[in-house]
């Protein structure tokens, strides 16, 4: 019997692998979708602000533009506000576009904070947009967003049993 040449062998093996992957692909995709609930950020924001408009500005969201480790992303938000009894920030909400849940954290502050600045550390499951929304005492909403590139994602990896 004639030995298959190196070229025919590689082509045949390649075709074999491609067929297997193609057959298994929908199942793999499905597993991924079942595991990750749908993140509906616009809905979450609508629930917060209702019909009110969210203006751009006054808020400064500070995150690194490129994140190596999505498990620990330093995030800080500051709002341009006098923080007086009459005009202060009531709350700062942080939302993400592609983590399993749209809400990240909510910070409630008042005139006794002195200045409107909070910092924390968050997880990022993917390269995505993050939005910080400030809720002011006069009922207005202000926001800032940032785009992050994440190289190592958090949240969805498996744990050894």
């Amino acid at each position: 019997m004639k030995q298959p040449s190196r070229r025919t062998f590689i082509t045949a093996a390649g075709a074999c692998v491609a067929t297997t992957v193609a057959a298994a692909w929908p199942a793999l995709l499905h597993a991924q979708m079942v595991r990750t609930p749908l993140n509906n950020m616009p809905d979450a924001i609508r629930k917060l602000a209702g019909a009110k408009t969210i203006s751009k500005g006054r808020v400064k969201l500070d995150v690194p533009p490129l994140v190596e480790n999505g498990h620990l992303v330093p995030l800080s938000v500051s709002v341009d506000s006098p923080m007086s009894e009459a005009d202060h920030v009531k709350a700062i909400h942080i939302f993400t576009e592609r983590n399993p849940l749209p809400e990240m954290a909510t910070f409630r502050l008042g005139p006794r904070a002195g200045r409107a600045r909070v910092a924390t550390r968050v997880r990022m499951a993917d390269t995505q947009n993050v939005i910080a929304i400030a809720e002011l005492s006069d009922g207005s909403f202000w926001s800032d967003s940032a785009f992050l590139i994440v190289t190592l994602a958090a949240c969805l990896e498996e744990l050894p049993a």
Partner: protein
Amino acid sequence: MTTANVRLDVPKTAKRGEIIDIKTLVAHTMETGFRRTHLGAPIPRDIITTFVCLYNGIEVFRAELHPSVSANPFIQFSTVATESGTLDFKWSGDNGFSATETARIEVT
């Protein structure tokens, strides 16, 4: 009540009216509830949901946390040093988790 490892950074003294920065860190896994073991069993959610800071018994800051907050939650905020007294910090969360810590501040 779980005993938890808490780290605080609160100035010991401050001038009246000064804005002081407070940093807090608490040891907690913040298990998201979206992970599975390699056998496919879901790992139940176990996170800190609420953090509160009281200044002489009056709430000055509150945070509501979600699974997107990293393990060992770090929170930094500020408050105006109004009078000498105590700052109480309280974390609470899933499975009855609760941790408290107190710091004293002298205001001159």
